[in-house]
């Protein structure tokens, strides 16, 4: 497992949300953790450099801008690589996972509007000759605040 010190773990858990929306956010954090602004910035840079943190930024809720859906396909195992490549090549596909199930390929499509979304799903079904089930979000029951690592 990636090694983080206990203070780094604490820092990540504390700042997965509520990054200050003010002119000098790192200085605000510094005053709360009794470090200097420079030290806080160095900590974040280092966590990103080591790839234990992918970025410091905004996490956008799905379905608030444009149109998106979760789609699944039951791909014959012998065709998985080929089909996964076709799916991943679609620019509107931003997550594509292999999962252990008859429905073994799961991907998220985010398009600028419903037509582009439909066209992407249709193109994947046509190119692969396999049905795609479309499971759009109807309701979210979780305010994603980040979870303890």
């Amino acid at each position, binding site marked *: 497992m990636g090694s983080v010190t206990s203070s780094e773990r604490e820092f990540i858990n504390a700042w997965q949300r509520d990054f200050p*929306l003010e*002119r000098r956010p790192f200085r605000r954090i510094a005053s709360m953790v009794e470090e200097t602004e420079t030290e806080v910035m160095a900590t974040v840079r280092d966590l990103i450099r080591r790839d234990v943190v992918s*970025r410091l930024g905004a996490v956008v809720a799905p379905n608030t801008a444009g149109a998106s859906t979760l789609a699944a396909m039951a791909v014959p195992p012998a065709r998985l690589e080929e089909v996964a490549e076709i799916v*991943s090549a679609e620019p509107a596909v931003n997550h594509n996972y292999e999962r252990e199930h008859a*429905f073994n390929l799961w991907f998220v499509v*985010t398009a*600028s509007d419903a037509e582009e979304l439909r066209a992407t799903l249709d193109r994947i079904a046509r190119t692969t000759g396999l049905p795609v089930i479309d*499971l759009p979000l109807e309701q979210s029951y979780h305010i994603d605040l980040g*979870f303890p690592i």
Partner: protein
Amino acid sequence: MTTRSSHTDDIDRRIIGATQGGLPLVREPYRAVAKDLGLDPEVVMARLQRMLERGVIRRIGVVPNHYALGVTANGMSVWDIPDDQVRSAGELVGALDFVSHCYHRPRRLPDWPYTLFAMVHGRDREEVERKVAEIAGLLGDKQSGHEVLYSTRILKKTGLRIAA
């Protein structure tokens, strides 16, 4: 398919576009973003605040790379729950701190009977199974079947992007 683009205007979308991939790690990150967009820093901060309040942006902060941190068992638990009970079930499950996403999605019979999705993370499958059992206990007879789908490979992952 859900479209809610009316929640954001063009300036909001440009701000999201400029910040979702990561804020610049400088002393005044919002000023740097504002400068790139030709906006006032106060406008950038106020709009980010408003998008947070409306739920367009879920949070601003460090985004951990869970795989690098050893949280590698990612189990998508899916639950067959009658339509009229999905809401109460979703509220129960969504409140659990080990559930990172909890969504109601339509069933697609005959192949797919599940209506509630809850993403459960753990260091190994055993930990995920324990958490799924906890969810099953909470739901009691609200659910008439569930499965856990483990991811075996990430084939593509880019940050959620807004298509232009």
